[in-house]
């Protein structure tokens, strides 16, 4: 699943940003494989995360355990 809202036809730019984001934080191989950008690295590169988040007018959030 690489799109947050499969039927969405609005906010195309935001959807592209989010789709890319989702693709990079989810494993592309098996269910338990590491994603391209794992959570620990994501938090290290907070600037990238913040830039990504602030491009989007939807509500975005990350919660850890």
């Amino acid at each position: 699943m690489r799109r947050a809202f499969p039927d969405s036809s609005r906010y195309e730019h935001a959807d592209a940003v989010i789709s890319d984001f989702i693709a990079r934080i989810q494993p592309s191989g098996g269910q338990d494989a590491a994603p391209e950008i794992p959570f620990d690295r994501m938090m290290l590169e907070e600037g990238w995360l913040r830039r990504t988040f602030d491009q989007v007018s939807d509500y975005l959030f990350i919660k850890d355990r």
Partner: protein
Amino acid sequence: MANRTVAADMGVSSPDELVGKSDFDLHPTALAEKFYADEQDIMRTGTPKIDYEEFVYLRDGRRRWVASSKFPLRSASGEIVGVFGISRDISVRRQAEDLVKGQSRVLEMIAAGAPLPDILENLVSLMEAQLFGVWGSILLLDDDGRHLRHGAAPSLPGAYCEAINGVEIGPVVGSCGTAAFFGKTVIVEDIGTDPLWADYKDLALSFGLRSCWSTPIFSRDGKVLGTFAMYTGRAAVPGERERSLIRDTTRIAAIAIERYRTEAQIRYIAHHDSLTGLPNRRDFSFQLDRLIASGGDRFALIFLDIDRFKTVNDSFGHVVGDMVLKTVTERIRDSLEPEDMFVRFGGDEFVIVIRGERAAQSTLNALLCDISQLVALPIHFDEQAFHVTCSMGIARCPENGTTSDDLLVRADNAMYQAKEYRPRRVLFLRGQHVVGRAVPNAPAGGHA
């Protein structure tokens, strides 16, 4: 962490202020527990939850509907360590859907003949759910066209509704009384300063009501049926959204009220005599059966017939005949109590039912003498005066019968015997025997 959109709705100036907070710090407990359960499930199963609808409460108390998708977040080793979520504001779509669904529900209630107060309350609640900090009220214009009565106001204080119930409309009577009087929308931005509210502002302000926008509800033929008002707790005027809801609400309210009044009119016509306004035979049979079934008070049933009424019709015409029936009806009605039954049974025949202590022989005799004398008073028409008399037969429940048919037949028979014996007599049934009693002091009959 969260983005600026989340921070703004949570009432903080920067997303950084949300770092380290949990849902339990930001949302009502029940909502936080739901979020927690959803997200624990995603982290346990590793399965994203895609595009589902939920709501959040904003800092000012408004509810916002969102479509949410949530994904598990993994560490470099593949272990699930958190959740990423995106929520998209769908309040506008959701409100539009809720409005359409709600309006359909109200229209179904109207079609199904639901009670008018229930329909109007649903309608006002529907409008209130669409707006924030707005309370609705529907007032109904009385048949006299001068007073407004409570219709529905599910969120306004009961004491306020009670205080304005029955207010007489006029040119300076708050928003609703003025709107109904002129048949025009009245927008009052500030109740505290608007002259239309001079006599009512203390009352409204004491309940925290500050602005009131009232619109007349019109029937299809342009008559004012009532008013629909929106109140707010701060000085304000309606925007386009509010105006749109006012249009929708008044249109549906008009359908509901007109339908209710038409049905009430049909019910009235079906159960009342159009000439005298008395209940008719159909309504009486139902009422009498119910009275008998209740097994309560003893009662006397009086069958009354105007003597030689055909002669009146033949000699003076039906216009005079109708006037005689109306006059006789008014005279008899004036001598009865509200709890008595009085119906036009057909033609010149009437039935009266007297219950309880007043059905006792001596009391009843006095009442029937009064009726006989009142009926026989002169009737003036076109510079002429003439008299009619009546004959009455009486049957008692349970002595003379315990079914409506039995009682009517026996009272009818007694009345005919009275008429044959001599007009203006009353005959009582005592057991199976007719007992005659002349009506004392009754004036002699005239033309009839």
